[in-house]
């Protein structure tokens, strides 16, 4: 009898698909349910950020940085303004530094909450997503209180901030942190240590440390693979060297180091660490004027800089080239998700269709940042 011929099935996921986290398109080659290959197609949200930068002045770029990683806008601002300040050699007031850290860490919590919630949806648990959004809403309230915007803030300016903290901010923040600790515990009970959740995520999409480094992965993806690397600790910028916190790495107490569960758990633990940083920052917060160092005219000297910060997704790098005019000559953004997404085909091969979704969720990508 002649052997039965079989063919691979090509499944097209996205750009509209409930769990591609935006407008990512995946071309999945399948043998039954087993994944032979995954080819990500990006660019469905290419908004020409880098072209805009060349046409705008330095301060005008800030709102566009907001719109790159729209889940972590504060951090996008943070990286950009610090880079320009370095380029111009501006010394900013102490209070500004502390407020930036507080905002940055709050944003990290908010971003991780979305990552965790949507990961829950990918696995099939809908309720944790809403719990995460409930907590995130309180962080957004804090931001709104400060600068009036919920999602895209344009809060950090070159040399300072747009507004000082309102008087009620610190007490509200304290009460949020108090409640949030409890909610993390609830989240752990509901999702992190759920038997089905563990079955679905542990030992799935294992990413060895050396592969992660070679592929340029950073942030929770790299730390999930057990590499103790956090720019806040290892290459401190701003005032992160003044705080006492722990770098969370995947320990592999459930599953293997580098699997989806460990990547997920790194985020949960990082939220706790962020709370710690914020608490320390509140205690040390000095008085002062937040707008005093804002330059009248932003015109950096000829030169270039590659400045990187640890955004919630990983290493966010700004490569800014200045030709001495008020417009940046070139701004290239090293977006963490852009690099992290490359790993998806590597960790998905040989697993099942459902595992692609789990892997993608555990990478926590944002398309705005990938396509820019």
């Amino acid at each position: 009898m002649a052997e039965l011929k079989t063919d691979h099935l090509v499944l097209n996921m996205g750009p509209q698909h409930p769990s591609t986290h935006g407008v990512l398109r995946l071309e999945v080659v399948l043998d039954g349910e087993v994944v032979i290959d995954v080819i990500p197609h990006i660019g469905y949200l290419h908004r020409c950020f880098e072209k805009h930068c060349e046409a705008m002045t330095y301060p005008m770029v800030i709102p566009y940085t907001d719109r790159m990683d729209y889940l972590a806008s504060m951090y996008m601002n943070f990286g950009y303004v610090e880079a320009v300040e370095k380029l111009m050699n501006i010394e900013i007031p102490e209070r500004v530094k502390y407020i930036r850290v507080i905002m940055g860490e709050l944003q990290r919590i908010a971003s991780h909450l979305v990552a965790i919630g949507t990961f829950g949806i990918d696995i099939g648990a809908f309720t944790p997503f809403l719990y995460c959004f409930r907590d995130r809403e309180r962080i957004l309230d804090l931001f709104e209180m400060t600068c009036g915007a919920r999602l895209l803030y344009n809060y950090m300016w070159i040399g300072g901030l747009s507004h000082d903290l309102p008087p009620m901010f610190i007490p509200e923040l304290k009460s949020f942190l108090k409640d949030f600790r409890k909610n993390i515990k609830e989240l752990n009970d509901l999702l992190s240590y759920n038997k089905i959740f563990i079955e679905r995520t542990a030992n799935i999409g294992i990413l060895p440390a050396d592969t992660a480094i070679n592929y340029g992965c950073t942030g929770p993806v790299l730390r999930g693979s057990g590499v103790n690397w956090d720019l806040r600790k290892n290459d401190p910028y701003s005032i992160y060297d003044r705080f006492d916190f722990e770098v969370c790495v995947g320990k592999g107490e459930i599953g293997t180091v580098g699997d989806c569960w460990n990547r997920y758990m790194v985020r949960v633990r990082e939220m706790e660490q962020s709370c710690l940083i914020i608490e320390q920052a509140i205690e040390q917060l000095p008085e002062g004027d937040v707008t005093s160092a804002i330059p009248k005219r932003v015109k950096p000297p000829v030169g270039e800089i590659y400045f990187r910060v640890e955004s919630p997704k990983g290493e966010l790098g700004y490569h800014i080239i200045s030709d001495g005019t008020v417009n940046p000559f070139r701004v290239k953004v090293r977006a963490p998700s852009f690099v992290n997404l490359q790993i998806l085909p590597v960790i998905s091969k040989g697993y099942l269709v459902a595992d692609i979704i789990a892997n993608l969720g555990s990478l926590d990508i944002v398309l705005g940042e990938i396509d820019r």
Partner: protein
Amino acid sequence: MGILDKEFTESNIIITKFDDLMNWARLSSLWQMTFGLACCAIEMMATSASHYDFDRFGVIPRPSPRQADIIIISGTVTLKMALRIKRLYEQMPEPKYVISMGSCATCGGPYWNHGYHVLKGIDRVIPVDVYVPGCPPRPEALLEGLLKLQEKIRNESHVKKQV
């Protein structure tokens, strides 16, 4: 007729004209397509989440365009994506509605000038019923947009010719 009309609008009787009933059914159960593009999609998700709760108005997300009534274009539409959106729109069954959420979807938003790859307004590709301004619109604004759409549906008619 006039007396009866008043009777129906003012008192809480459920029996009403056929048109009104059908319109009422459509406006009360606008199933939304799970479809987000960019920043506004996050606000759209926030609108569906606990704090604002889209479900109150009968809006539930459906992953398949075949079962959806409204598509909320939430975010920047790029040229690469525009054709896909058009196809998605065509896959939806009539009657279907479009909410253009945020300034990017409405007119290109901040990307209107130098955005070589951005479509300047989704209305160049598919017809839009309600525009919601903002960058991004707050969830309240999206809810307002939904109420406006409901108002629009309420005045539609199966029988009468639309002008």
